């Protein structure tokens, strides 16, 4: 399997704090890769750098064979790299359906077309059915529960037919039933060809779903391997427990 995403010696400093310090790793195509590490190890900062929300101080990000370091988030999204946020970010003033339509990543020419056209509706309705959001399609996103918002955010980033999806704590703040639902959707989409990179604190979720697992500590990769090996790795235990 070739690498879909590779991070090469990426660094980012905030004031005197080295949030990411010369981090390098790769995400192979077709995998569900986990990115774990203690709080403050630089996971979300790295997500922000990969998706163009932050500029790295040094290093390179390569996506699908192209150097995308410093690219605009919108451009990256349109080229197939999308993400969700730790706190589900949907547009509360838009309906559930419109939240999907707005995320389709269109060109300039379509800006002056109908707000929700027939094509948009057809495309979105498949996702709405798949995520069981069809009954609430016309409600404002503001009226959804938090778990539903997480699902909606996930469904919305699939509108652009991405090849790589970065999920930032997909199970945080949602109930066990919703966690199972989320896991099922990730598996289905992975089988359909989407590669995932997931930041997650729920270790049972990671162990069930992800392979390989990359562990960060103090802005560096300290381990990469199968989930079973993570639990017995001395460096990882040291990072988590400070033993």
């Amino acid at each position, binding site marked *: 399997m070739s690498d879909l995403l590779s991070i090469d010696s990426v660094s980012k400093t905030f004031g005197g704090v080295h949030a990411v310090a010369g981090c390098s790793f790769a995400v192979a195509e077709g995998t569900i890769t986990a990115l774990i590490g203690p709080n403050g190890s630089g996971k979300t900062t790295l997500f922000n750098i990969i998706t163009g929300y932050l500029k790295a101080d040094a290093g390179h990000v390569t996506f699908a064979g192209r150097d995308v370091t410093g690219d605009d*988030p919108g451009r990256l999204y349109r080229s197939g790299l999308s*993400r969700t946020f730790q706190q589900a970010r949907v*547009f509360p*003033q838009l309906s559930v359906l419109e939240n999907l339509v*707005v995320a*389709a990543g269109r060109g300039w020419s379509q800006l002056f077309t109908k707000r929700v056209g027939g094509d948009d509706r057809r495309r979105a309705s498949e996702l709405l059915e798949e995520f069981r959001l*069809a009954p609430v399609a016309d409600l404002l996103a503001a009226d959804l*529960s938090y778990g539903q*918002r997480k*699902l909606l955010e996930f469904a919305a980033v699939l509108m652009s037919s991405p090849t790589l999806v970065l999920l930032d704590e997909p199970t945080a703040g949602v109930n066990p039933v919703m966690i199972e639902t989320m896991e099922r959707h990730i598996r289905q989409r992975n089988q359909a060809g989407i590669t995932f990179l997931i930041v997650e604190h729920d270790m049972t979720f990671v162990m069930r779903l992800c392979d390989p697992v990359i562990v960060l500590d103090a802005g560096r990769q300290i381990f990469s391997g199968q989930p079973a090996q993570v639990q017995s790795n001395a460096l990882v235990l040291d990072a988590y427990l400070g033993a």
Partner: protein
Amino acid sequence: MSRGSLVRGGLFVLVLATLPSFGLQHWFLNLMVFVLMFATMSSAWNLVGGFAGYPSLGHAAFFGIGAYSMALIFHGHVLSNGYEPFLLLPLIGLISAAVGFPIALIAMRTRADVFAIVTITFLFMVQTLAFNLRGWTGGSQGLSLPVAPFPAVSFEEPFYYTLVLLLCFTLLVTFGALRSKVGLSLVAVRADEDKARGIGVRVTGVKVLAFCVSVGITAMVGGVWAYYETFIYPQFAIDPLITIAVVLMTFLGGRATLWGPVLGAFVLEAGQQTLAYRLGGSQFYLIAYALVFLVIMLLLPRGVLPTLGDRLRQRRRARSVDSTSGGVTPMAAGAAEPPVALRRGASA
């Protein structure tokens, strides 16, 4: 929604178009000219301040640019035809939109309160220029325009109808934006610009477009105003109070709605002029004006139309839940999700 909007719009235009034929007095038509000016400017401001969520305080600068453009073109000119200045309005709008383009590109790198400060700074810059470029603007001496050669008995009517057309144009632009992906993108920008950028929304494009269209329309109103007044001074042509009035009207009626700014302008401008007339030369009318605003905002905090719309929506939902207990509710797809109140309507 579409049919309802068309019917409402048609009725509104019909009433406005036939109003002067009722032989109304000059003071009333004069009042209507100002109401229409503010309704058009508020609707135009709504594109940026309402839909895109960028609270520009610099719109009066473009009102002034429009007014001075008109004055500079026709100063010392003898009009052969009173409608000539009106025909140049689209050109004034286009020039002002072009002036607005680099301003938007620079100012819209900032957001919210910083954007408001940047734009109001631009307003004072333009006002200072108007005071000091005496060779062009006449400085504080002002600049005259030829008096419109319309008969005294119907002097206001050409201005009135031009403003009705401008207001219709602005409402059609707003309606078109709302029904297209431009409107969808603007709502996304207002709700969460960073997220919108990250999902491929043409963020810079739509907000700069909204700004240019908005200031172009504002400048056209400025042009009509200059021709109507026939003499303009920097402190009145580029007046922060114009911006503030437009913002208040939009907030009062309901920002990011089609009819809210129009409603706000009709209530506040008509109220202000009437109160100023009744309470005479004293400044007491300002207290009454503020009182009208405060009472409405206290009772309908998100503006008249959004608050009433919300209440109607809540009532409908409550009724539908009552009548179909066990039917589809927002929680149906969320399985065992707890019923957490997550409505963020108040910040919308």
